[in-house]
């Protein structure tokens, strides 16, 4: 069983929900990333999501676009993101880590080579925002050989029969996009999320985590009533943007912010 499945099954057994923070590798510099990941784990993150900086993040809102731009300005690449994972793993061998990015970054490195290096670095899962399940077979095989789950997204617009296709192709968990929109959007509708969760639950036994537009503990708590966990990205990344000139302060700030969300979510 993968590290992701082990953690999510364990949480399910305890009736607890997963909290998954997202930051971008190399934002605002490469030195900050591993300490920031460690701080998030200390603050109660069950899994970690690390963004691969990309020049054209077409599914991301302004906060994560800006994070990518800061990381690219600091010279961060996919190879650097993997270096950050290795550095984090020296400190933490148990918290599952998921890379999230766009397909071109993976293709440029080569799918096989990426899978081997990511596996060796201690990556547990991969989310590729713009890779549909129909075209994921090659990458999925390469990842499987390296012990990495390919996590697929489902959306409010995904038809029922397609949810079943996603279930058949996904590993680890399914990432349900909460709304029609981009990351950091401000129009999340909890009732609608619950409706789509219900549709998805009928078609998958994999855990379902919900992301996009979840900005605070109260919303996280409401979503987590039905979901197996929540992803919080843009809200945290915005704090990193505010501290870009004082990167040394970022890990402590993230730890404090995520602890607040953890407490609100767990009640």
């Amino acid at each position, binding site marked *: 069983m993968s590290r992701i499945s082990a953690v999510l099954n364990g949480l399910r057994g305890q009736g607890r929900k997963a909290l998954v923070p997202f930051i971008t590798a190399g934002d605002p510099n490469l030195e900050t990333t591993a300490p920031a990941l460690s701080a998030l784990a200390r603050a109660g993150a069950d899994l970690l999501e690390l963004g691969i900086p990309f020049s054209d993040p*077409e599914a991301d809102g302004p906060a994560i676009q800006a994070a990518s731009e800061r990381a690219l300005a600091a010279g961060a690449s*996919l190879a650097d993101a993997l270096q950050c994972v290795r550095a984090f793993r020296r400190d933490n061998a148990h918290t599952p880590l998921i890379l999230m990015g766009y397909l*071109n970054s993976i293709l440029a490195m080569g799918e096989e080579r990426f899978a081997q290096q990511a596996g060796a670095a201690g990556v547990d899962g991969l989310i590729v925002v713009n890779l*549909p399940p129909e075209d994921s077979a090659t990458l999925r095989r390469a990842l499987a050989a390296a012990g990495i789950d390919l996590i697929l997204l489902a959306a409010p617009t995904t038809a029922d029969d397609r949810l079943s296709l*996603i279930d058949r192709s996904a590993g680890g968990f399914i990432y349900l996009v909460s709304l*029609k929109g981009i990351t950091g959007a401000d129009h999340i509708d909890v009732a609608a999320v619950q409706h789509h969760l219900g549709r998805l639950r009928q078609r998958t036994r994999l855990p379902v985590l919900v992301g996009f537009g979840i900005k605070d503990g109260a919303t996280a708590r409401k979503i987590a009533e039905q979901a197996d966990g929540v992803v919080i990205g843009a809200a945290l990344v915005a704090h990193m943007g505010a501290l870009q000139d004082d990167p040394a302060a970022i890990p402590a700030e993230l730890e404090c912010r995520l602890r607040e969300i953890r407490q609100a979510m767990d009640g």
Partner: protein
Amino acid sequence: MPQPGSNYAQPSERGWFGNYGGRFVAETLIHALDELQALYAEACADQQFQQRFSQDLARYVGRPTPLYFAAGLSAELDGPQIYLKREDLNHTGAHKINNCIGQALLAQRMGKTRVIAETGAGQHGVATATVAARAGLECQIYMGTEDIARQALNVYRMKLLGAEVVPVSSGSKTLKDAMNEALRDWVTHVDNTHYIIGTVAGPHPYPQLVRDFQSVIGQEARRQCLELAGRLPDVLVACVGGGSNALGLFHSFIDDVNVRFVGVEAGGHGLETGRHAAPLNAGAAGVLHGNRTYLMQDGDGQILATHSISAGLDYPGVGPEHSHLKDIGRAEYDSVTDEEALDAFRLLNRTEGIMPALESSHALAWVVREARHLAERVVIVNLSGRGDKDIQTVAAIDGTTL
């Protein structure tokens, strides 16, 4: 619309032209693309839709556009017999309107009340704003701030047509960033909005349907060339940014294996400088904006900033069908520099009294450069747009303030 009896059956049902194309978008958009694909297939089979499209092209756009024998230019170059396909004479001044007419009909058929588009030179933005005004659709046009600065005339035209021009200041502030922002808008407003992509790129079915709507160019040119020259052309030449005017011209000749296709990319300051927009000449395959195609990118897969004197060619990718035609050797792709394009712009003004768009000037410049190898050849150049929008750019280069 697919050519009956053609041996060339591209793309596949899932939108692949050989190894290129596909549908690499966020999951949220898949449903809208499925819907568009189904509706487009239905429209292709619907006589009334086809009739309406043809009527709009005839009565509103002003088609057919002439195929004009450029005697002055041919004499000046002393080699090829040059024919110009006059897409510059279309309503709104470029080929872009052909596709917009078709997509507006599709948007109405889907019951969408709002259209969005990206634009570089502003020609596609103007064409979209035009069809939106006519159909009573709400319209927002995404445009990079750098392009807004160099295409002020078209920006104002779009406003006069009732569209809202949304400035995009992320990334390189040009066409690719406008396309990112349009995709973000679409994913957010997918229920009521149709995204009118302006070129033969993007996720399936866009590369196919834009090509099909533009293929009227080649259908006319083929017939006109048989009438005027008494035979098929030897060479077709068109500029390639995303590549819609080129495919529009090439597509009807795809089975005419002796007709040579030449796509001309923007060489900018020269391929060796890295400051250009020529992915087919100097790029590598990758995935951007929903399709796998040749891209200008670095070793980490980051998309590179491009440069061209012409905003409409200033794009790091290219339609996936061009990537396929390049790989199978059916079309060849070359590039010309900013300077060569400017020289051709001036030459056509002087020899023919026609002011071409700087985009189309790239195709002309290739013919100028290659003229000595084209003796006696019948060459059709797609004059994809007129140059009024570029007067300020050229004047600035001449040191003239208007």
